[in-house]
């Protein structure tokens, strides 16, 4: 992946720049109100943002979806900023006792305080699955909780 440069724009928001493989500088300005602006700089003048496009919160999610980025991941990265809260992606191995069982069966939240916030299966994702959701071998379970709690979930998913 290209190097992303994060630049603070005091009074405006945050800007993320990167240079494409073709040498064009491309970036997104996150305005403080949630509005985003996408810009592209022509290769012969990398300092000048030329094409700019305004996106609302919704538009940004639509564009991300079209580009193939899961909005779940983005929501996750916001969660990560809360102090003391950790997030992890835990795979369900074929020999895990939970392949084929539901979230409720494992009583994960009751035992560890950790929440399952999403399950990623191949290219699709299931945000906020309920207790009746059944894991399959090969799923990736996105969990949020304390570091200790997540360690406990890891061993529960592996050994029951």
């Amino acid at each position, binding site marked *: 992946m290209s190097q992303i440069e994060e630049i*603070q724009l005091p*009074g405006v928001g945050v800007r993320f720049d990167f240079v494409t493989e073709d040498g064009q500088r491309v970036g997104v300005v996150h305005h*403080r109100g949630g509005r985003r*602006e996408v810009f592209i700089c022509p290769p012969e003048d*990398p300092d000048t*943002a030329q094409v*700019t496009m305004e996106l609302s919160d919704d538009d940004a999610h639509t564009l991300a979806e079209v580009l193939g980025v899961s909005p779940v991941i983005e929501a996750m990265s916001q969660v990560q900023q809360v102090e003391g809260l950790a997030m992890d992606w835990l795979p369900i191995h074929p020999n895990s006792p939970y392949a084929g069982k539901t979230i409720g069966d494992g009583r994960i939240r009751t035992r560890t305080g950790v929440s399952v916030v999403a399950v990623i299966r191949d290219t699709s994702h299931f945000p906020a699955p309920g207790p009746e959701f059944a894991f399959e071998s090969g799923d990736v379970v996105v969990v949020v909780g304390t570091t200790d709690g997540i360690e406990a979930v890891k061993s529960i998913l592996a050994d029951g």
Partner: protein
Amino acid sequence: MSPSATLLLELGGIIFALAVLARFAERLGISPIPLYLLGGLAFGDGGIFPLITSQDFVDTGAQLGVVLLLFMLGLEYTGDELVKALRTGARAGVVDLIANFTPGYLIGLLIGFGAAGSLFLGGVTYISSSGVVAKLLSDLGWTGNRETPIVLSILVFEDLAMAVILPILGALALGGSLAGTAGSVVAALTLVALTISVAARHGHRLSRAAFSGSDEVNLLTVLGVTLIVAGVAEQIHISAAVGAFLVGIGVSGEAAHRVRVLLAPLRDLFAGVFFVFFGLSIDPGTFPDVAGWAIALALLTGATKAATGWWAVSRANVSARGRRRAAATLIARGEFSIVIAGLGLTAGVGRELGPIAAAYVLIMATSGPIFARLAGRRPAA
């Protein structure tokens, strides 16, 4: 006509005139501030449409306008951003201060404002209009440009510098003995440092605790607290402007964003009234006497500001076009120059300060955006 009818008619007239001027400014793509000032001239003594009964309201509205302008300036940047700017942008910020404060100060001495009074003219020429610059950056689609973070960091530093300059000017304006003035300056600066450090560390938590109600509750809370702090600051000779500025710095995070949306319309209204008020206090007949000084100041500090922008950006290896843009963007002076001049008038600095500052801002707020647009043009190829 009954007095209350006259009052309503006059207020309606002023506000409607502001609306017409703002629309006109939008059409031209310039800042409305110079037009508001001209509007004030028209309403004043010897103007086209002198006011009779609404003078009191305009006086009070103007005070509210200053308080709200400074509160929103404090709100603009978080304590964290201010601390970061101090670390990374200090060099460009200090060059900016020296290069743009000095010409105003020296010309102040030449005009005969004296050693203390000239500080006000230095302040007028120093501070760029963050309102005009921010609007230019967004209108021209320049937020993605390479030079923009550097331009913004200069503005943040000016904001910080205001936190130091305003208490000094405020203490001078409110007068008192030399020892008393020095005392209030020290007290104000201590308060500023304290607020910034507390806001950088605990601002989010404080703001979250204070702003949890509906928009209505939040608006009234913020406005009430700001006015009380401003009043207390004025009473203890720190100046209302500084008090409001400190409250603005103290509010941060999500709360700051909501407050900004809530108070922006109020700020626009009362800041407009303040510019009219400032225009009112000027006798149009004095303009010819000060035109020479204002033009000299404009040429000199337009050049020093442009040079500052050019130099600051070239340190980051930005192309010549980007340097031209940075130089032109920073030229605009506006609302805060008028605020400082207003303090100067309270301080009883020479009568020429008002018309000079007004003429100066007329030139800078109009020409700044024009230069920026020219600088942004694609070079003829």
